[in-house]
C-alpha cells in the first residue's frame, strides 16, 4: 500500500526496493529504446520482421483496449473490429494526400470536402481515435441504460453495420476496393510509443479512484451503484477510452499494412482480439501484451499449416483455416490448464520476476516433499 501513496518523483522518500525497481524500469526503457533503434535501422530484422513486430505491438494495444472494457470493467464487447475500422479509415482518409486520393477513387470520385482535407499523420491519428470514441459514446448511451449484458449484442451489430456502411459509402471509403498505397508513415517508434503510452495510462488509471470504480463495477454492479458510483458514467468512460485505443490501433495498422478494405474488419478480427485476451489473461496488461505477441507470431509461424506441408512421407494438403484449428486447440488447453491465462492473472513486476527462481524452487521442494509423505 505504501508504494502507491508516494508521489512519483519523490525519490528521496522511496524505500530501497522501490529505488531498485525504478532503476530497473529506467534501464529497461533505455534497452527498449535501443532495441527500437536497432530494429528501425535494419540491424536486427528485415522489413518483414519489422512488420511483424509492428503488428505485435498494435495487437497488444487492441488487447489492452478490449481488456479495459471487458477484463477490468466486466462489459462484454465484440466490437473491436468495428472500432479499428473507424480508426483505420478516418486516419487514412485524413492523412492521404489529395493526389493519392484522386488516383484511388477512379470509379467514383471522392466527395469534395474530403478530397482536399489533408492533415499531418499525428493529427489524423488522434482524430481517428476521437471519432472512434464518439461512436462508442453513441452506442453506450442506450445500451448502458439497460441492466444486463446487451453490450455484446450491440457491438456485434455495430461492427457489421460499420463494415457494410464502408462497403456502400463509395464516395467516402472507396467501397469494397478499399484504400491502397497508404504511405508507411508508421514505424516501430510510432507503434512502440503508442503501446508504452497505453500501458502508462492503464497503470495510472488502475491506481486511481476511477480505475478502482471500473473494477468495482465488474465485481458487483449493485454494490457499486449503492455507494454512489454512476454506472452509466463509468461504463461510458471505460468504453470510450477502450474505443479510443482501438481506433488508434486501427489507424496505425492501416499504415503498417498499406492497404485497407472492409473485409479486413470482419467479425473474425474481433474474435482474434477476444482470443488474445483470453489467451494472455483477462484483466491484466501483461496478459494483453503476451497474448498479442503470441497470437501474431504464431499466426505467421504457422502459415505453413494453411499452405499444405509434409511430415516425413505424409503430405498434408493445403487447408485454409487449419491455423485457426491450432488456435482453437491452444485456447482449449489454456482454458483447461491456465484458467487465468498465460500471464497467470498477475501483473508483471520486478519483485515477481526476481522472486521467480525462489518460487520455482519452493514449488519443486513442495512437490518432492509431498512425494515423501505419500510413501
Amino acid at each position: 500500500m505504501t508504494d502507491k501513496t508516494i508521489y512519483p518523483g519523490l525519490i528521496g522518500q522511496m524505500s530501497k526496493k522501490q529505488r531498485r525497481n525504478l532503476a530497473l524500469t529506467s534501464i529497461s526503457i533505455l534497452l527498449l529504446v535501443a532495441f527500437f533503434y536497432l530494429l528501425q535501422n535494419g540491424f536486427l530484422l528485415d522489413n518483414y520482421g519489422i512488420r511483424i513486430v509492428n503488428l505485435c505491438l498494435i495487437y497488444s494495444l487492441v488487447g489492452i483496449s478490449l481488456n479495459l472494457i471487458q477484463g477490468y470493467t466486466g462489459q462484454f464487447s465484440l466490437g473491436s473490429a468495428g472500432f479499428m475500422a473507424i480508426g483505420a479509415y478516418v486516419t487514412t482518409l485524413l492523412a492521404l494526400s489529395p493526389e493519392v486520393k484522386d488516383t484511388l477513387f477512379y470509379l467514383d470520385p471522392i466527395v469534395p470536402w474530403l478530397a482536399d482535407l489533408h492533415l499531418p499523420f499525428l493529427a489524423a491519428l488522434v482524430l481517428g481515435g476521437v471519432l472512434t470514441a464518439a461512436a462508442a459514446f453513441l452506442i453506450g448511451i442506450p445500451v448502458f441504460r439497460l441492466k444486463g449484458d446487451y453490450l455484446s449484442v450491440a457491438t456485434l451489430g455495430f461492427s457489421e453495420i460499420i463494415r457494410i456502411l464502408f462497403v456502400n459509402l463509395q464516395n467516402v471509403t472507396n467501397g469494397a476496393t478499399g484504400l491502397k498505397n497508404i504511405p508507411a508513415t508508421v514505424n516501430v517508434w510510432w507503434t512502440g510509443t503508442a503501446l508504452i503510452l497505453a500501458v502508462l495510462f492503464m497503470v495510472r488509471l488502475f491506481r486511481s479512484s476511477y480505475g478502482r470504480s471500473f473494477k468495482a463495477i465488474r465485481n458487483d454492479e449493485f454494490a457499486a451503484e449503492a455507494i454512489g458510483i454512476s454506472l452509466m458514467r463509468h461504463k461510458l468512460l471505460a468504453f470510450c477510452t477502450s474505443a479510443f485505443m482501438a481506433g488508434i490501433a486501427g489507424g496505425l495498422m492501416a499504415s503498417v499494412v498499406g492497404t485497407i478494405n472492409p473485409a479486413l474488419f470482419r467479425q473474425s478480427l474481433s474474435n482474434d482480439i477476444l482470443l488474445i485476451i483470453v489467451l494472455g489473461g483477462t484483466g491484466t496488461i501483461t496478459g494483453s501484451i503476451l497474448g498479442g505477441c503470441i497470437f501474431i507470431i504464431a499466426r505467421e509461424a504457422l502459415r505453413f499449416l494453411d499452405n499444405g506441408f509434409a511430415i516425413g512421407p505424409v503430405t498434408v494438403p493445403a487447408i485454409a483455416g487449419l491455423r485457426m484449428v491450432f488456435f482453437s486447440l491452444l485456447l482449449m488447453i489454456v482454458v483447461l490448464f491456465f484458467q487465468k491465462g498465460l500471464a497467470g492473472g498477475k501483473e508483471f513486476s520486478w519483485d515477481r520476476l526476481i522472486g521467480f527462481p525462489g518460487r520455482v524452487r519452493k514449488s519443486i521442494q513442495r512437490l518432492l516433499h509431498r512425494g515423501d509423505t505419500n510413501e
Partner: protein
Amino acid sequence: MSNILELRNIKMQFGGVTAIHDLNLNIEKNQIVAVIGPNGAGKTTAFNVITGIYTPTSGHIRYFDACNSDFTDITGLRPDKIARLGIARTFQNIRLFAEQSVLDNILLGQHVHLKSSYLGAISYFPHYWKEEKQMRGYAMELLNEIGIGDYADADAVSLPYGIQRKLEIVRALASRPKLLLLDEPAAGMNPQETAELAGFIREIRDKYEVSVLLIEHHMDLIMEIAENIYVLDFGRLIAQGKPQEIQTDPAVIAAYLGAEED
C-alpha cells in the same frame, strides 16, 4: 423534532404480490430506528425502495437534504443519485468487492466525493494526488477504528465473516452519509459479537452524526439500541413505538408466535 426521512403511503407490488402495503415511516435526525418482522415481511424491500433499487408502485419518499436545508422527493431516483445525497446502505448478504483489497473497498466508498476529473486523476496532477492521500488517510482511520488497519492490503473476502459485516458498514460510512441503512448487520454473529456490534452502531451514530435505520432479527440488539421500532408483517405495518411498547404489543406477539417459535 425534525425528520431526515419520511415514507408516505408506500406501496410496492411485484406482479400480483404486494410486498409492502401503505407504509408510513419517519426517521428523526440522529435517531436509531429498527424495522423488524418475520421472514418475508417486506423489510429488505423497504430498503430497496428507499435506496432506489425499486420504484414504489405508489407513495412518496422525502429526504432532508442537508446541502439545501430542505426536503427533496427521492421517490424513484437512481441508486447512485440517492447515495450521492447521503443515504448509504449495507446488504443482507454481504456485498463487498471480492477481488479488491480491504483498503480499496473503503476508498471506493469515498469515490462519490472525488473532485478530480477522469483525465486529471490519471495524469496524477498534484490536485488528485492530494485527494488520493486524503482518501487513504481517512480510509486508514476508519479501518483502525474497527481494528483491521493491519489487513488493509488483504483481499476483502479473506476476512472472518463478522469482520466482513463491519467492513461493509465502514465502507458505507466512508461516503460520509447522513442516513445509514443496515440490513441484518448481526446476521451470523455470535452473542458476544452481537453485543459488540450494538456498541459499535451507537458509537458511529454519535461520532459521525448519522441516523440509522436497521433491520434485525436479534431482539436483544434491537431492544438495546433502537429508539423507535416499526413492525412489519406480510407487508403491513402492525405496530410502531418505543422498545417497551413493542415488547408488550399483542399484535406483535401474535405475529411472532404465529410465524416462528423463537
